[in-house]
C-alpha cells in the first residue's frame, strides 16, 4: 500500500519542532533503533544551526559506530584514525584558532585506544570540545567489552560478566580528565528521556560558549545505550541505563569553569 504524504501544517497542526535543515543532511541514519547517537548528532547540529556557526565549525569523527558522523553533519569534518580524534582536532584548532572544533568519540575510541591522546589534549588545555558517548560496549564490532563496561556486565568478550580479576575496573575517564588544570568543563549527561536531552543541549551550549571564551578543554560525556549490544529493546535499554549505568556514571556537572 502506498503511503500518503500529509503536510501536517496544511492540515492545521502547529509546527513545534523542525529538524535543523542546514546542518543535518537528509541522509538516513545507519544507527540501530533506539540508539542514542542520532539524538546527540541532532542536538549538536541544532546548536551549530541556532548559533549560526556552520561556517565556523569543524568536527572530527572517530572510529566506532559514529564513524560516519560526517554523513549526517553538514559541516566540514575529518575522519580520524581510531583513538586519535583529539590529536586531529588539536591540529585543526591550532591552525584555525577562530573556529569551533569538536571531536565526537565513543568509549573505546576515547577511553581505550585513544587514552593518551585524550589525556594529553586535555592536559594541554586545547580549546576544543570532546563529545564522549559512553555506552559501555563496543557496538560497531559486535558488542565486545569496553573500558567503561560495568562489573558483571556480559559482553561477547566478557561472556560470564566483567570481573575485576581479568579486566580491572570500569574507567571513569571524565572524573580523571576533570583533575587536569587545562580542563574547563566536564559534565555527564544522557539522552534517554526528553528532559535529559534538554539538559544535554544546555551542556553543549555551555561548552561552545566556553570554547569561544578560550576557557580550555571541554568534555561532555553522554551516557548512552546500545540496545543491540546490550540485547534489549530500546525501552528496556533506557530503563537498564538509569538503573545500572547511573550509579557508576551519575549525571551532572563534574567540573565547571570559574566565572
Amino acid at each position: 500500500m502506498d503511503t500518503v504524504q500529509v503536510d501536517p501544517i496544511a492540515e492545521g497542526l502547529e509546527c513545534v519542532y523542525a529538524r535543523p535543515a542546514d546542518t543535518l543532511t537528509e541522509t538516513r541514519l545507519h544507527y540501530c533503533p533506539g540508539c542514542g547517537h542520532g539524538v546527540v548528532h541532532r542536538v549538536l547540529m541544532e546548536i551549530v544551526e541556532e548559533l549560526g556557526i556552520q561556517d565556523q565549525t569543524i568536527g572530527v569523527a572517530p572510529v566506532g559506530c559514529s564513524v560516519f558522523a560526517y554523513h549526517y553533519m553538514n559541516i566540514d569534518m575529518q575522519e580520524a584514525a581510531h583513538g586519535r580524534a583529539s590529536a586531529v582536532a588539536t591540529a585543526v584548532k591550532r591552525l584555525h584558532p577562530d573556529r569551533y572544533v569538536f571531536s565526537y568519540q565513543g568509549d573505546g575510541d576515547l577511553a581505550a585506544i585513544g587514552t593518551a591522546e585524550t589525556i594529553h589534549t586535555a592536559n594541554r588545555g586545547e580549546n576544543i570540545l570532546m563529545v564522549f558517548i559512553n555506552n559501555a560496549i563496543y557496538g560497531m564490532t559486535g558488542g565486545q567489552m569496553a573500558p567503561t563496561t560495568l562489573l558483571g556486565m556480559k559482553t561477547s568478550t566478557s561472556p560470564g560478566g566483567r570481573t575485576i580479576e581479568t579486566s580491572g575496573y570500569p574507567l571513569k575517564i571524565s572524573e580523571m580528565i576533570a583533575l587536569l588544570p587545562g580542563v574547563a568543563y566536564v559534565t555527564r549527561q544522557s539522552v534517554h528521556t526528553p528532559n535529559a536531552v534538554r539538559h544535554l543541549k544546555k551542556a553543549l551550549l555551555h561548552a561552545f560558549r566556553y570554547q569561544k571564551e578560550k576557557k580550555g578543554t571541554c568534555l561532555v560525556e553522554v551516557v548512552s545505550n546500545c540496545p543491540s549490544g546490550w540485547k534489549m529493546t530500546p525501552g528496556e535499554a533506557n530503563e537498564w541505563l538509569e538503573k545500572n549505568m547511573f550509579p557508576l556514571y551519575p549525571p551532572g556537572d563534574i567540573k565547571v569553569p570559574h566565572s
Partner: protein
Amino acid sequence: MTVSTAELMKGNEALAEAAIRAGCQAYFGYPITPQSEILEYLADEGRRRGMIVLQAESEVASINMVYGGAGAGARVMTSSSSPGISLMQEGISYIAAAQLPCLIVNVSRGGPGLGTIQPSQGDYFQATKGGGHGDYRLIVLAPSSVQEMADFVYDAFDLADKYRNPVMILADGALGQMMEKVAFRDYNPKEHTPAKPWATTGKPRSRERNIITSLFIEPEKMEQINIRLQEKYAVIREKEVRSECFMTDDAEYGIVAYGLAARVAQGAVEIARSHGIRAGLLRPITLYPYPSDAVRALAERVRGILVVEMNAGQMVEDVRLAVEGRVPVTFAGRMGGIIPSPDEVFAALENLTTQDVALHAETY
C-alpha cells in the same frame, strides 16, 4: 638568526631552517635521537618566526596531528627516527589514502628494534614500499649532504602539494648530525602553495561540506580510490624521477648507492680510478619513484654493478629488477649503524671485477 649566505650547520638544523623558509605552518613531533635538533630548532627559531610547534605525547599523536593539520589546509610536517617512524605507519597510511600533502622526515638509525642511534639505511623497504597497510606509496627523497637536507625540504613540500601525497625525506643519523656549509635558496612560499579548496576550514553556504576521510566502505568505491591512487603514482613515476651520475660515461663497472652510502661509494670510485679501474656511480635521489631507467641504462653500458647500502641489502632488489639479469649485480653493505669505508667498497668492487673476469673466463 636568519641565514642568507652559506653557513656551517648541522643537517638537522639546516632541514629545520629550510622548513621555516618553505612556509611550513606547523610542526608536530616527539623527541628521538638522532633528529631531536629538528624539534629543538623549530621550538626556538620556528616559533619565533610564527610556526606552530607542538611537542606531542607520542609519534602516534604527532602523525595524527599532521593528518589534522594537512586536512585543515596547512603546510605541515613531522620528523622522527626509525622506531618513531614505525609507530607512525598507521597514520601515514591514512594520510596517503585521504590524499593529504605533508612532509615526514626519517633521520634513520640502526635497527631492528630499539637498535642503535648510529646511522643506517635499514628503513629503505619501509619508506619505498608503503610502510603501513594497504597499497600506497610515499614520494621518497634521499639527501646525501647537508645542502640537500635543506634543498629537499622545499622540493618535498612542492611535490606534496602538487600530488596531494605525503613525501618522506629519508636521511640518516650521520646526515642529521654532521656539519657542512649550506646556503638557502630564494623561495617564496606564497608562490608555491596552491589553493586547497578541499580543506576543512569551515563550510560557507557557497560550497558543499569538505570531508577528509580514508574510509570507503563499499568495495567498488574503495577500488576506484585505489585505481585513482595508482594512476597518480604512475604519473609520479613518469615525471618525478631524479638521480645523479658520477663518472659513469666511460665506466666499465657501476656502483649504485644513495644517501650517505653514495658519498662513500664516490670515494671508492676515485680509489678505483687511481687503480686503473673505470668505475662510476649512479646515485638515486628519488627512492620512490625509483630511477629504474637510469639503472637499466647503466647496466647496458657496464660489465657489472655493485650496490652499496648501509643495510643487509634492500635497494639491491630494485636494482636487480631494473637490470633484469643483463649484468651481474653484487652487494656490499654494513649493518647496525656502521658506515662502510671507501676502501671496503673498493675491495667489493675489485671482487666484482675479478668475478667478472672469472665469469668471462668460463664463457671463453
